[in-house]
C-alpha cells in the first residue's frame, strides 16, 4: 500500500476524521500528531527515525536561538548550519535513497528552512512546544504536495484549532470532493494519453498528436497538482485548519510572471519571502531585480529536480520573465482588448512548451519531440508515423479534454466551494459517485490495473 494511493487516503480520512472531530480539544493535538506519524511511518518505516531526529534538531535550534537572542554570531551559525543540514538531507535523500525518499521531501525542507529564517529574523518566536512543532512539520494533509505553509500562518490554528462546525465540515468535504474529481476524473485519465504517446515514442507521432499531447499534459499536470492541493485543503478544513490556496486558475493569466503568481502560489510566495526580497527584490533598481529573479528561478529549477531538463525549464521561464520586465514592458501596459487577447495566446503557447521541457527528462528525446511539434522532418526523420493517430486519441479522450478545458476556468471552484445552494450538494454527490465509479473501474494506481 503506497502513500499516494487514493484508497489509502480515503480510508485514513474515513476512520480518522470522525474520531478527531469527537475528541475533546485537549487531546486533539496529540491525536493529530499520532495520525501524522502513522502516515509517515506507514509510508517508510526506515526513514521515520531520521525524520523524527531531524524535527528534534530543528526544534532545539529554534529554542537555542530564542534563548541566546542577543548573541548574533551564535544565532547566525545555528541558522546557517540548519539550512545547510536541511539542504544536504534533501540532496542526499534524492540522490542516494531513490527508493526511500521521504514523500514530499522538497516541501518538507522548504518549510523548515523558512522556519529557521523566520526565527533568525525575529519574525516569529521559536515554537516552545514539541507537539505543536511536530504537528506543523508533519501535518499529514499537506505532506504530499503542499501547500507550503509558514509557521506564522498556521500557528494559531495549531495552538487552538477552530471548533469544528458542521458547515466547515461540509465545506471541507466539498473541497475534498472537488480535488478528488480533478485528480481522478481528469488528471488520471489524461495521464494515459501522455503515457500512450511516450509508449509510441516521440519519433513516431504525427504533428497534430504532438500538439494534442502537449496540451493534454499541461492540463494533466495542473489537475493533478491542483487536485492534491484541494484535497489537502479539504482535509485540513475538516480538521479545523485553514491552509492557503495553491492555484488561482493559472491558465487564464496574461503573462508568464502572472502565471507563476497563480500557479503553485505557496512556493512562489516562499521564494519571494526568503530569496527574492532579501536579495533586493524589485524596489532597488533593474539590475538587482534581474539578479534576484535569476536566483529565484535557478533555485526553483534545482528544487524541482537535479536533472538538466528542469534547469532548461527554469531558464526558459526566466528568459521570458526578464523579457516581460524589460522589452515587453511597454506593450504590457496597454489596456486594449486586442493586446489582452494576444497576451493570453502568448501564455497559452509558451507555458505548454515549457511543460514539455519539464516532462521529458532526456534532452535528446525533448529535441525529437520539438521536431515533431514543428514537423521538422529534415532534422529528425519520423519513423512509422500513423497519420490518423491523433483522431484515435481524440475519440478516446475528448470528454476528459473538454472537461479539463472547462475546469481551467474557476467555474467549478465557484460553484462547489464558494456558493452554498442545494445544487452544489447535488453536484458534489454526483462527482463523488463518478469518482467512486472510476476508482472501482480503473483503479487508482495506474500500474496496477494496466492492460496490455
Amino acid at each position, binding site marked *: 500500500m503506497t502513500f499516494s494511493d487514493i*484508497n489509502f487516503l*480515503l*480510508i485514513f*480520512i*474515513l476512520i480518522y476524521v*470522525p474520531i478527531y472531530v469527537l475528541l475533546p480539544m485537549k487531546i486533539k493535538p496529540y491525536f493529530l500528531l499520532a495520525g501524522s506519524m502513522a502516515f509517515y511511518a506507514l509510508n517508510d518505516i526506515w526513514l521515520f527515525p531520521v525524520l523524527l531526529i531531524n524535527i528534534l534538531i530543528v526544534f532545539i535550534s529554534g529554542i537555542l536561538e530564542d534563548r541566546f537572542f542577543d548573541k548574533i554570531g551564535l544565532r547566525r551559525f545555528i541558522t546557517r548550519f540548519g539550512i545547510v543540514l536541511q539542504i544536504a538531507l534533501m540532496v542526499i535523500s534524492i540522490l542516494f535513497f531513490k527508493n526511500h525518499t521521504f514523500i514530499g521531501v522538497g516541501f518538507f525542507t522548504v518549510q523548515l528552512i523558512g522556519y529557521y529564517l523566520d526565527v533568525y529574523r525575529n519574525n516569529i518566536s521559536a515554537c516552545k512546544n514539541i507537539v505543536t512543532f511536530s504537528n506543523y512539520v508533519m501535518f499529514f494533509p499537506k505532506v504530499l504536495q503542499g501547500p507550503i505553509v509558514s509557521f506564522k500562518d498556521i500557528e494559531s490554528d495549531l495552538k487552538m484549532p477552530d471548533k469544528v462546525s*458542521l*458547515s466547515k*465540515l*461540509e465545506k471541507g*468535504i466539498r473541497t475534498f470532493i472537488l480535488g478528488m474529481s480533478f485528480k481522478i476524473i481528469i488528471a488520471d485519465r489524461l495521464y494515459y494519453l501522455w*503515457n500512450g504517446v*511516450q*509508449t*509510441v*515514442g516521440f*519519433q*513516431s*507521432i504525427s504533428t497534430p498528436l504532438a500538439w494534442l499531447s502537449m496540451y493534454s499534459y499541461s492540463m494533466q499536470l495542473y489537475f493533478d497538482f491542483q487536485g492534491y492541493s484541494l484535497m489537502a485543503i479539504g482535509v485540513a478544513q475538516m480538521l479545523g485548519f485553514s491552509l492557503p490556496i495553491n492555484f488561482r486558475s493559472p491558465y487564464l493569466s496574461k503573462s508568464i510572471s502572472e502565471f507563476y503568481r497563480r500557479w503553485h502560489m505557496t512556493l512562489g510566495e516562499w521564494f519571494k519571502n526568503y530569496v527574492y526580497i532579501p536579495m533586493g527584490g524589485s524596489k532597488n533598481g533593474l539590475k538587482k531585480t534581474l539578479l534576484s529573479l535569476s536566483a529565484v528561478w535557478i533555485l526553483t529549477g534545482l528544487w524541482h529536480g537535479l536533472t538538466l531538463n528542469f534547469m532548461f525549464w527554469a531558464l526558459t521561464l526566466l528568459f521570458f520573465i526578464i523579457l516581460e520586465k524589460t522589452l515587453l514592458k511597454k506593450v504590457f501596459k496597454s489596456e486594449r482588448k486586442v493586446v489582452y487577447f494576444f497576451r493570453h495566446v502568448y501564455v497559452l503557447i509558451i507555458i505548454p512548451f515549457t511543460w514539455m521541457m519539464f516532462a521529458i527528462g532526456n534532452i535528446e528525446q525533448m529535441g525529437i519531440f520539438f521536431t515533431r511539434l514543428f514537423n521538422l522532418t529534415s532534422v529528425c526523420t519520423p*519513423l*512509422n*508515423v*500513423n497519420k490518423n*493517430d491523433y483522431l*484515435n486519441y481524440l475519440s478516446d479522450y475528448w470528454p476528459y479534454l473538454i472537461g479539463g478545458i472547462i475546469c481551467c476556468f474557476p467555474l467549478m471552484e465557484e460553484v462547489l466551494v464558494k456558493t452554498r445552494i442545494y445544487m452544489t*450538494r447535488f453536484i458534489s*454527490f454526483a462527482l*463523488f*459517485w463518478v469518482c*467512486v465509479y472510476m*476508482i*472501482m*473501474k*480503473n483503479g487508482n494506481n495506474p500500474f496496477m*490495473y494496466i*492492460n*496490455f
Partner: protein
Amino acid sequence: MKKIFQRAPLFVFIYATLLFMFFSTQFSRTLQIYFPYFAVQGDTIVAGVSSMADTIEQTLLNPRKASHTVVMGNENEQIALPDVTSSGEVSESSEVLSVMDEPTPTPIYGEPLEDIIAASQPSTYYVEQPVDQSYFNDAVFLGDSRTVGLQLYSGWDNCDYLADVGMTIYDCLDRDISFGDIQHTTAREVLSSSRYGKVYIMLGINECGSNINTYFEKYTEVVDQIHRWQPDAIIVVQGIMKVGAQKSATHPSINNTNITARNEKLATLANDWYIYYLDINEAVCDENGNLTDGYSFDQVHLYAKYYSLWCDYLLEHGFVFNGVRR
C-alpha cells in the same frame, strides 16, 4: 440546532458512501488476491472462469490425468503428448496422409488434437522462406495490445487484425472488438465466416499470472477451433514477446522466465503441417534474452519505430506451400 438536524442526513449519506467505497474496493482487492480467477480487468472477467473450471475438472473429474501430470513433474512435459496414441494408429493415419499431395487436412471433429499432431510429426507441407508483403494479403493477426501496435505502426493494411488491448487467450474469440468498419464484433464471428490463408496469433502477456497448463490447454483449444473454421489456413503461433530486463526482474508474473516457459510449450504446438511456431524475440531481444534496452518505453510495448523489426522478422520467415511430403 435546527440547522444541525437539517444537515445530519447529508453527513450520514457521505459517511455511508465512504464506507461503501472502502469496503467495495477492499473487497474487490481481497477477491483478486485470494481468488485470482475472479481477477476483474476493466469490464470483463478474464483468466478466470475457465481456469477454475479446468482445475476442478482436472482434479475431480479426471483424476487419472491429474495424477499423470503430477507424476511427470518435469516442467516441459507436464502436458506430454499422451499415451493414448498407439503406434498402430500413427502409422495408419500417416499412410493416409502420405498419398495426399494437397495439404487438405482431414476434418478432425471429435478427435483429440494430439492425435493429429502425433500423426503428422514427420511431414512438412510448407517451407520457411523470405516473402514479400503481398504474402499477408490473406492473413489475419489475432492478438493483444502489441498486435494493436502492429496494426497501427506496421503500415501493413493488406491484412486483417483481430486485436484489442487486454485480450487474452481465454477471451480472444468472444471479446467485443472492432474490426475494420464494424464497431462491434467478435473474432469468433469473423473467423467462422471468412476465409483466410494464414492466421497469426500472439497472446499471453496479459494472462502471465494465470496457470501455465490452463493457458496451454486453452491455447490448444483455440488453435484447434480456428483450424476447424479455417481448414485450409496455416496457423502461425508467435511466441510471446519478452519484456525489458527491469520489468522482468521486478514483476511477479510478467517476467521472462515465465514467458520463456510458456513459449517452450507453445513451440510444441507446431506440427510441421498446418501449425507453425515463430519466436520474434530473436529479432528484438538482447544477448541476455531480455527485450533490448531502449526499444520500449514501458518495457512491454515496442516503440512504434521498432515495429519494423517484428515486420521484417515475419517477412523473413514466411511459410510457403511446398507440396512435397518428405
